[in-house]
């Protein structure tokens, strides 16, 4: 399994950057990056966030090697919401509004052993008169 340093190096080479180039962009020293890539030292969360941003990598991928590699700013529609939009013939604006409203729910405390799937249909039915 690759280490954090190895993932940074792999991405740097993929971008065709020298160590100096990455250091300049991430505002870190050459010695630090060299040690990091060679697994000789650990990295603070703050610094790792900066490196992840410069390399356009998701923090998730950089830290664990799992998940989507590239950080994207594109809006992603869950498949279940896309299905609902098709069935209900919802406009793009309405779908975006639904997504935005869903983001207003910060947490939802349930006493349940099952990992629940979000019910877009129920959610839409509750708010459709306000869309």
């Amino acid at each position: 399994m690759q280490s954090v340093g190895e993932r940074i190096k792999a991405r740097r080479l993929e971008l065709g950057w020298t160590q100096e180039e990455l250091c300049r962009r991430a505002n870190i020293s050459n010695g630090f990056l060299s040690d990091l890539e060679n697994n000789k030292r650990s990295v603070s969360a703050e610094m790792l966030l900066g490196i992840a941003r410069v390399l356009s990598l998701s923090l998730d991928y950089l830290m664990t090697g799992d998940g989507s590699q590239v950080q994207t700013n594109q809006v992603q529609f869950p498949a279940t919401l896309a299905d609902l939009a098709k069935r209900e013939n919802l406009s793009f604006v309405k779908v975006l509004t639904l997504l935005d409203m869903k983001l207003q729910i910060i947490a939802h405390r349930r006493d349940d052993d099952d990992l629940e799937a979000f019910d877009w249909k129920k959610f839409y039915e509750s708010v459709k008169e306000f869309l």
Partner: protein
Amino acid sequence: MSKLDKETEIIKLAASLKVDWQENAVQNIVELCHRKIRQFLKHAPGIQTVKQLEALVCENIKLVFEEIRTDEELAQTIRKYLALGEPIFATLKHDLDEKTFATLVERRKIDGNAKDRYVAVIDCRGPKALRRFFTRWHEIAHILTLQGQLELPLHRSSTVKNPTERLMDTIAGEIGFYDPFFRPILLEETKSRTIDFDTVERIRNRFAPEASYEATLNAAVKRSKSPMLLLNVGLGLKKAEATKLESPQNELFPVPTPEPKLRVLKVLASNSSIGTGLQVHRNMEVPKGSLIYRLFKEDSEDEIAGVERLDSWRHSDGKSLAHVEVAVRARRRHKSITALISLRS
């Protein structure tokens, strides 16, 4: 490091909150919440009770609570926020079902400095009211760690299995039972005796009568100065048996359904028990010679206390627990047993 420390979700949250995620991420996040609270307290020196503390923290994090005790109150709350231009509240009618305790919402039609930017709707209908105190602190924990959560691509509707929700419970247990207020009462009540069930009731009445007995028991055991375990015991299957039962894969030959046995369903260890040899593992079978087993099997008593040896407890591979004498106090609770186990001095 605990199991929770190793969860990717928790590591990412710690990193986003800019605290050390490589070692003890949970403790570092809890400490961050403590730092924030200490900062709030610096500007409010007169705070002396947990109720006052809750109000102070909420004011600082721009959180208000809406407690729902009847269906009519729920309808009124929905109407109130709809009138304020927040249609998201219309989802509450279906959202607050029998298994949901609270929903935390960020308002949109409001300026950033308003005192009610976040609204936690707490369902206090029926038996859910018992968890009101803890749920309020759980929602506070969400806001105290919000910056980190917002940076994560998570589905934020969560269940008890979700690592973030488990972390919020840990934070709530720490800050809701705020140590500078809770510990003096705990120490005073346990000056001449170890924690028992009646002591916890007295602590609860003095600290926060609105807190549930269970939450107070957990907080008291966790901080007990003498090594102690709190067990929840009931009928259950081995992990492998439960996994097999849940598996959709059919067996080639019919296999008998495993029989649930009396097992440890939950364990909470006091911080002081670390390194003392006092430990019982989750899912262990309760030995037939234990007082806990006796209480479970016999209907005549509701509480039992005595001394026994911990080495009568065995793992499935036959290895026994530490050779120590322990004091056991157990109390029947519905279909399960709550037991306190402490090293005998």
